């Protein structure tokens, strides 16, 4: 008997409380009208779309990514209607000072924003041929910069440029390489790319490597790459050489390595290249220069952090360029030329990079580019009414697969690229990120026809009296408060308005956007207390974690409500609202028609019942610790929880550790190893019971969201259970063979529960996407319910969940700029109704070259992953939808990413993968934001034993943790005496080679020798030595650096240890051949064949 003082097993007469179940809310659901619950009946116009709304946070400072250019100086005399420090970010003085804001000459050419200009000019257009001798290699810094610069349109004209127009830093090219590399990868449909005329090539070598450009790169002549291990004046620090075959002999295994060429690793970033590590030559790729070049694979990414290079006074190693050597030069052009020479593009460009192609075969994929920003959006300077650098959406909120939209469907088809958006509207704002600016004066200017929110891309006409909607071209009145503040009776500057300067803004929504008062956050815990749950320690750990998180649950207004239900073969309610201060347990064992014993007391205010709740959570495990009940009535418990919570809406957190076996919603053990790896496997990935789908629709109607935490000793049918989060905007967490006795398991649960409970979620939300005339949304992917062709319903919007939308054509695009606007009407955790509006404008193009140049490989991979997940559910085969053989520079990683998907846990054909793991991987693929999805497909691979000494420390200048250089995912990079780390954003794998030096074992694991190290999931001990602390810092940083609620467990894999772990680790090395899927180079050859035979 549990310690709770209340009457146990108190069972009210069967029908006692029935009337209470007829909540007024139950009848409320979407109602017969076309407008579902969220729509405001009193909305100002009769347009169907008026549901979108807004909200926001007070005192917000515009949130933007760190890559943004620095704010410009504010105009000295500019008046700011709002208190926010936004004025700094506003237009340049020349704009502010325009006479008469109501007369503003909107379309006049304004100076392009500094960011655009800066990035467009003076950059070398470095394409380099692979295999170039090191001496002639350009710095890879230039190659990197190239990516962040707005690509220019055309490359056809390039040969026309007289050499005098080239920037002096033009990197050289190996002319001889070009013919060799080019032909195989030229897809026939891309005539523009042929523009590499010989005429251009001779001029290239005249330009020395970009020495003058970047002082960090020393002249390279005569510097053989491997000797780049700088011998700076550093005092030698401990470095772990790989005790590989060679290294072990000619140097002591551990200690100052001054005698060894690889010893001074501290000089740079060449983690991979330390000669101490055997670097097998790569005979199959021919060129002898390759072997020499390969050490530079860990090129740092100077684009992101220039201080990397200078900040530490390390000897500069001129080796980076090699990483990018194998590219082909397409030439470059100056700004002026470009504008003159391309009349036909429908829009003018501010900067002029050109389409560059790279040869895929014969090179290693240049993985550092995975973190490069997407191709720049090349809008005309007149596209936006203000010159704010924030006028277009930050890629972390919204990115498009193509940053230039094809004008016709035919062009899109020809390019074979997918067109879609990847949206993360409610991403978390971590320290250092700027919050979303909030329009707090509740002036919402919207198009009266299509209900688009006013945004930086509208046009003001008729002397600024009206604005022309950029979606449907309707003329609308400009609200008078844009120019005049009735409260202070002062004129205000409309160009300072946040919605005309920021692509991401939040509005506080007026009452028209509510159908009821904003709901308080409600958290109802549905905890499995059956025998399995108690045995694995889930109940105790979860209760402790919830208790710990109680103070972090958003509860600013003191309105948050909490409830607890325990379930085994009966449903145990807890009355937390007792006077005595002791929680009361009420048990209902009628599973056919479960009722709520005391519906008013089951959910109680978190502030009021805090003590009751703590004492309940403290005792929960003890109450049931002797249970032998193996029943689990999840279905009836969910129905009861729904009854309890549906009048308000909220979140049900369902912690389930056994298969539901009583009442409705029974799920049977259906895993059949014989089906795995066959075409029938897809049936295992389908929900087994329709109960959960139906129930999720009910939940959605009542604004109830369900989060599933699944703890399965064996099979927990993730596919079926995932239905609930999938349609209610929830999240699924999966803990295969959870055992709370292992601290790493318990920590994962604790971390994830804490994340979920402490994040500020959005409630009762709808999301509408509007696109310019001529385009339409054709499919939606993610966790939500589609309520209309352009309206998504999300009872809860968790932080950092990503949604993908595929776009199609309805008509030709005749405009020069298209616009995508996402509006998320939600109730914030603090009880404010808000609309978050994300606007993105993209140029329209008629050129195939532009299309390729503007393609965003990360977004494409994200969209493809979502489509592949969809297809897995529809049919049997795994998908490998490769859109094309990409050759353009910014698409060069697409083959690698698609290969990563083909080899991913979710898609690879194998009979070894339990369907639970697959289902969970599918769930992750369809919800993770790009930031986490890309490492999930293509993990980060680091070599830790020989990392430079500054890795794993905090950079004094940037305050960031220095990470080692990521390496290519190939087992060639593994060494027998090394320590390696793979981070796939969901788990961290540490590989310990069998010849690892004992000192490393001692420093890192506190073990005497390799034999004593324990493999498997673990937590690294924290020891008092430099190496251990650096590794721990790297791991902690890896666990925290991404925006996601999931906790990355650490697995230690010994080279000769557990076979299963080894296989799991090795399966991440996607460039290797893994039966039956090809290696990277085989895959490229395969793609090439298919392109050449036109079978795409």
């Amino acid at each position, binding site marked *: 008997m549990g310690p709770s003082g209340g009457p146990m097993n108190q069972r009210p007469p069967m029908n006692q409380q029935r009337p209470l179940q007829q909540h007024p809310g139950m009848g409320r659901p*979407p109602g017969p009208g076309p407008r579902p619950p969220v729509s405001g009946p009193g909305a100002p116009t009769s347009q169907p779309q008026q549901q979108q709304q807004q909200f926001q946070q007070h005192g917000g400072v515009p949130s933007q990514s760190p890559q943004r250019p620095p704010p410009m100086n504010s105009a000295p005399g500019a008046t700011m209607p709002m208190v926010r420090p936004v004025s700094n970010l506003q237009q340049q003085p020349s704009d502010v000072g325009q006479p008469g804001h109501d007369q503003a000459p909107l379309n006049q050419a304004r100076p392009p924003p500094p960011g655009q200009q800066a990035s467009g000019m003076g950059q070398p257009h470095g394409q380099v041929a692979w295999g170039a001798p090191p001496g002639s290699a350009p710095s890879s810094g230039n190659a990197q910069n190239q990516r962040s610069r707005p690509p220019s349109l055309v490359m056809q004209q390039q040969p026309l440029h007289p050499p005098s127009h080239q920037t002096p830093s033009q990197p050289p090219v190996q002319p001889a390489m070009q013919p060799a590399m080019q032909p195989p990868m030229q897809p026939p449909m891309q005539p523009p790319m042929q523009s590499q005329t010989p005429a251009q090539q001779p001029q290239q070598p005249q330009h020395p490597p970009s020495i003058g450009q970047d002082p960090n790169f020393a002249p390279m002549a005569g510097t053989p790459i491997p000797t780049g291990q700088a011998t700076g004046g550093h005092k030698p620090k401990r470095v772990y050489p790989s005790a590989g075959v060679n290294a072990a002999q000619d140097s002591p295994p551990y200690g100052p390595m001054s005698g060894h060429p690889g010893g001074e690793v501290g000089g740079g970033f060449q983690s991979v290249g330390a000669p101490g590590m055997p670097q097998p030559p790569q005979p199959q790729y021919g060129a002898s220069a390759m072997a020499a070049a390969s050490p530079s694979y860990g090129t740092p990414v100077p684009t992101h952090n220039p201080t990397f290079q200078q900040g530490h006074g390390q000897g500069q190693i001129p080796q980076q360029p090699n990483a990018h050597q194998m590219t082909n030069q397409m030439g470059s052009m100056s700004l002026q030329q470009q504008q003159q020479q391309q009349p036909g593009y429908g829009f003018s460009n501010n900067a002029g990079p050109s389409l560059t192609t790279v040869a895929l075969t014969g090179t290693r994929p240049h993985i550092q580019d995975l973190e490069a920003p997407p191709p720049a959006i090349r809008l005309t300077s007149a596209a936006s009414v203000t010159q704010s650098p924030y006028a277009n959406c930050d890629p972390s909120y919204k990115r498009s697969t193509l940053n230039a939209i094809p004008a016709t469907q035919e062009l899109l088809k020809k390019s074979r690229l997918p067109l879609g958006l990847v949206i993360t509207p409610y991403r978390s704002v971590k320290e250092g990120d700027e919050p979303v600016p909030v329009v707090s004066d509740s002036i919402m200017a919207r198009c009266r026809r299509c209900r688009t929110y006013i945004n930086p891309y509208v046009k003001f006409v008729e002397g600024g009296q009206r604005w022309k909607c950029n979606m449907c071209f309707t003329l609308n009145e400009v609200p008078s408060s844009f120019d005049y503040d009735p409260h202070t009776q002062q004129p205000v500057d409309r160009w300072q308005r946040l919605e005309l300067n920021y692509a991401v803004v939040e509005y506080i929504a007026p009452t028209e956007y509510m159908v009821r008062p904003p709901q308080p956050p409600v958290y109802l815990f549905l905890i499995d207390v059956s025998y399995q749950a108690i045995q694995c320690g889930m109940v105790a750990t979860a209760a402790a974690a919830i208790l710990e998180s109680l103070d972090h649950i958003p509860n600013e207004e003191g309105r948050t409500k909490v409830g607890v239900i325990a379930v085994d073969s009966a449903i145990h309610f807890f009355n937390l609202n007792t006077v005595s201060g002791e929680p009361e347990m009420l048990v209902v064992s009628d599973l056919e028609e479960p009722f709520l014993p005391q519906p008013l007391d089951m959910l109680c205010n978190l502030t009021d019942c805090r003590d009751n709740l703590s004492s309940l959570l403290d005792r929960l495990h003890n109450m049931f610790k002797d249970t032998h009940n193996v029943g689990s009535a999840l279905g009836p418990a969910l129905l009861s929880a729904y009854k309890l919570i549906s009048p308000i809406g909220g979140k049900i957190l369902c912690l389930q550790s056994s298969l539901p076996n009583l009442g409705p919603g029974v799920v049977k053990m259906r895993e059949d190893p014989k089906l795995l790896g066959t075409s029938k496997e897809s049936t295992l990935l389908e929900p087994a019971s329709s109960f959960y*789908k139906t129930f999720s629709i009910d939940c959605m109607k009542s604004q109830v969201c369900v989060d599933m935490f699944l703890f399965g000793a064996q099979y927990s049918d993730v596919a079926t259970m995932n239905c609930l989060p999938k349609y209610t905007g929830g999240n699924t967490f999966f803990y295969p063979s959870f055992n709370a006795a292992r601290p790493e398991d318990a920590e994962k649960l604790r971390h994830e529960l804490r994340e979920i409970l402490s994040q500020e979620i959005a409630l009762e939300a709808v999301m509408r996407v509007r696109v310019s005339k001529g385009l339409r949304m054709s499919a939606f992917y993610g966790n939500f319910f589609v309520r209309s062709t352009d309206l998504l319903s999300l009872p809860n919007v968790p932080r950092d969940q990503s949604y993908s939308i595929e776009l199609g054509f309805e008509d030709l695009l005749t405009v020069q700029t298209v616009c995508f606007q996402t509006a998320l009407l939600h109730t914030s955790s603090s009880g404010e109704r808000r609309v978050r509006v994300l606007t993105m404008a993209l140029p329209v193009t008629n050129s195939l070259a532009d299309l390729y140049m503007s393609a965003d490989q990360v977004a494409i991979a994200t969209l493809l992953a979502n489509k592949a997940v969809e297809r897995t559910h529809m049919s049997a085969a795994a998908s490998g939808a490769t859109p094309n053989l990409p050759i353009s520079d910014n698409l060069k990683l697409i083959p690698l990413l698609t290969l990563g998907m083909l080899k991913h846990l979710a898609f690879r054909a194998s009979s070894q993968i339990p369907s639970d793991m697959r289902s969970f991987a599918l769930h992750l693929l369809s919800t993770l934001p790009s930031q986490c999805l890309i490492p999930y497909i293509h993990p980060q691979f680091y070599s830790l034993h020989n990392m430079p000494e500054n890795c794993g420390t905090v950079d004094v200048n940037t305050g960031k943790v220095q990470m080692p250089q990521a390496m290519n995912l190939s087992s060639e990079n593994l060494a027998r005496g090394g320590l390696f780390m793979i981070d796939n954003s969901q788990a961290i794998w540490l590989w310990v080679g069998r010849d690892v030096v004992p000192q490393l074992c001692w420093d890192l694991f506190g073990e005497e020798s390799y034999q004593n190290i324990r493999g498997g999931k673990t937590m690294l001990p924290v020891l008092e030595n430099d190496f251990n602390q650096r590794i721990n810092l790297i791991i902690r940083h890896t666990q925290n650096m991404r925006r996601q609620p999931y906790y990355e467990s650490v697995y230690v894999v010994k080279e000769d240890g557990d076979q299963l772990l080894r296989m799991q680790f090795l399966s991440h090395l996607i460039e290797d051949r893994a039966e039956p899927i090809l290696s990277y180079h085989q895959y490229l050859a395969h793609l090439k064949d298919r392109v050449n035979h036109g079978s795409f």
Partner: protein
Amino acid sequence: MSMEAMVFLFGVIVGAGLLFVKVFFVILISDLEVDYINPIEMCNKLNQLVLPEMFVHALLSFIYLISGQWIATAWNLPLVAYNANKIMTGKHMYDATEIFRTLGQHKKECFIKLGFYLLSFFYYLYR
């Protein structure tokens, strides 16, 4: 009145009923497309009618069979088989969560069935 006339009179009445049901389907589907109805409600309404429609159609075919109307039976048989197959594979109901993904197929199917019932109706009427 002969047996044959009775059977076809029944067929005309049932055929008209089916025709109306199908028109109702088409109307609701178009309503959904222009957002006059939400998918949950639409699916609830349509799902009530799916099985009765299939049952009535199967019954009619059966009556033709036992009354020896071979041509009418042969005309209806493929649809009966198609419906039966859908029920067996559990795909006959409208699923609100997937409706926008499958709307095109549903619409196509509805129009084909509508045409089929229309032809049937005139055949029963004028033969």
